[in-house]
C-alpha cells in the first residue's frame, strides 16, 4: 500500500459526503472508490435514521409532547390576557377595569356562541375542518377549568414550575367575581378582538375613533396603533390575509391571530388530506427539508447545506 490511505478524503470530499452526494475519488484506486462507496452508503443509512415517522407508525414521546404543547398554548393565552389587563388597570381605576372585564367576558361568551364550527376548548382538539385554535380567555370551564387565568390549580402549569403573568391575576379577582365568573381576568378573546376590529373599521370610515378600551385591546394585540389596520385585515379575513402570520410579538399575538383564519391553514396531516403539507414533510429521508441548495444530490439522503 504505497498510497496514503484515505488520501482522497479531504475536507471538500467530506463536505460532499455529508450532503449525501456521491464522491468519486479521481484519480483513485479501486480501493479508494470502494472506500468512498462504503462511506456514502454508511452516511445514507445514518441519514435514514432521522427520517420522519410514517403516518401509521408509533412516535415515541409524541403524546407527552402534545400535552406540553397544549399546556404551553394555554400559558400563552394567559400571559397575553394578563399583560393586557395590567395595561388597562394602569389606565383606569380598578372599578372601571372590572367593568371592562365584564364586558370582555360577556362579549366573548356571546361571540363564541355565535361562531359555530370552531372549537374554543384547547383540550378537545377538533378534527377537520375546525382546528384546535384557542380563543384566548374563553377557554371555558367546560373543558375542565383548563384556562381560568387566576386559577393556580390549572393543569397548564409550565413544566419549569413558573407561570407567566400569574401575579397580576390576584388583583382583579375580587372584582371579577361580580361577573359571569368564567374568567377572573379578561384576556380578550379572539371574538372580542374581532368585534373590536369591526368597530375600528366601521368607526374609521365614519372618521371617528373607537372607544379607549377597544383601542387598548387592539393596540396591544397588533403591537402598535399603526399596525392595527393590517392586524384587523388579517383577523377579519381580508383577501391578503397573510398579515396574521407576521405577529409583531411572539406570545402577545400568537393566540388571537390563530383562531379565525385557521380552518384554512391547518394542515391536519393525520386526516390524510390530499392537500396536507404532510405529504411533503413525509417524503424521502430529509429531502424535503434541507435539500434546498443541493438539487444534484444522488443519494436518497440530503445532509444539507
Amino acid at each position, binding site marked *: 500500500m504505497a498510497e496514503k490511505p484515505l488520501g482522497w478524503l479531504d475536507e471538500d470530499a467530506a463536505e460532499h459526503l455529508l450532503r449525501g452526494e456521491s464522491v468519486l475519488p479521481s484519480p483513485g484506486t479501486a480501493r479508494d472508490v470502494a472506500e468512498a462507496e462504503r462511506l456514502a452508503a454508511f*452516511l445514507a443509512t445514518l441519514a435514514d435514521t432521522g427520517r420522519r415517522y410514517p403516518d401509521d407508525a408509533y412516535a415515541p414521546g409524541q403524546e407527552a409532547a402534545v400535552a406540553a404543547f397544549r399546556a404551553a398554548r394555554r400559558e400563552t393565552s394567559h400571559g397575553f390576557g394578563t399583560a393586557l389587563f395590567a395595561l388597562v388597570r394602569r389606565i383606569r381605576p380598578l372599578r372601571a377595569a372590572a367593568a371592562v372585564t365584564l364586558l370582555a367576558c360577556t362579549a366573548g361568551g356571546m361571540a363564541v356562541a355565535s361562531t359555530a364550527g370552531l372549537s374554543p376548548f384547547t383540550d378537545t382538539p377538533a378534527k377537520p375542518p375546525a382546528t*384546535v385554535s384557542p380563543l384566548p380567555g374563553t377557554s371555558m370551564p367546560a373543558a375542565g377549568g383548563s384556562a381560568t387565568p387566576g386559577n393556580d390549580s390549572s393543569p397548564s402549569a409550565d413544566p419549569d414550575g413558573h407561570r407567566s403573568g400569574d401575579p397580576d391575576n390576584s388583583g382583579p379577582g375580587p372584582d371579577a367575581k361580580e361577573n359571569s365568573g368564567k374568567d377572573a381576568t379578561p384576556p380578550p378573546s379572539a371574538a372580542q378582538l374581532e368585534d373590536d376590529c369591526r368597530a375600528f373599521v366601521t368607526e374609521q370610515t365614519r372618521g371617528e375613533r373607537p372607544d379607549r378600551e377597544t383601542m387598548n385591546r387592539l393596540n396591544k394585540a397588533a403591537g402598535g396603533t399603526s399596525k392595527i389596520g393590517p392586524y384587523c385585515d388579517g383577523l377579519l379575513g381580508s383577501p391578503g390575509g397573510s398579515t396574521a402570520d407576521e405577529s409583531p410579538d411572539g406570545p402577545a399575538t400568537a393566540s388571537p391571530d390563530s383562531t379565525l383564519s385557521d380552518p384554512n391553514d391547518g394542515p391536519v396531516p393525520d386526516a390524510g388530506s390530499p392537500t396536507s403539507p404532510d405529504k411533503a414533510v413525509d417524503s424521502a429521508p430529509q429531502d424535503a427539508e434541507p435539500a434546498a441548495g443541493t438539487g444534484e444530490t444522488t443519494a436518497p439522503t440530503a445532509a444539507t447545506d
Partner: protein
Amino acid sequence: MALTAAVRSAQKGDEAAFRAVYRAVNPRLLGYVRTLVGEGDAEDVASEAWLQITRDLAGFKGDADQFRGWSARIARNRSLDHIRARSRRPAIGGDETELTDRAAASDTAAEAMTAQATRRTLSLISRLPRGQAEVVTLRVVMGLDVKRTAEILGKRPGAVRTAAQRGLKQIAEWLESDSGVTETAARTLKGM
C-alpha cells in the same frame, strides 16, 4: 417547505400541525441526542427538549432550517444538563441492547438487514470522539449546514469541517477493517 408551514401553524395553536412537526423532527433529535447521552437516556432527554421547545415555540421566528437548528440547540442544552446531573461521562459506546432487541424482532430478512445496518451505523457513531460524533450527526441527522452546526457547538466553521473530515476518516477506516475482516473470514471458511 412543509415543515416551515407546519411550524407556523403550530405556533398559532394548531395541534395537528404540531404533531406533524414532532413526527418530522423528533427522529432527528433522537439521533443527535444519542451521541451525547447514549441510547438508554436519549428518549428521556428528547422529551425534556420538547418541553422547552413547546414552551418557547411562540417566540420562535424562522423557517424549517432555522427550526431544526433551534431545536438542536435546545436538545444539546438538555443533553448537557442531563450529563452534568447524572455526573457521568457521555455513554459513548453506550447501550445497544435496545437496538439488538429491535433487530431480533425483525420479521423479514430485509428488515433484519436494515436493523443490522442501523445498529452498526449507530454503533460506529457512538465510538467516535464526542465532538466528531456531534458534527456528523448535526450535519447528517439534524440536517444542519456548517454555519448552524458551528454556532451550536461554539466552534469556528473551519473547526467543524476539520472535525467532520476526521470523523469520516475514522468511520471509513472502521468500515474498511470490518470489510477486511469479513473477507478474510470468508476466505478462511472456504479453505476449511
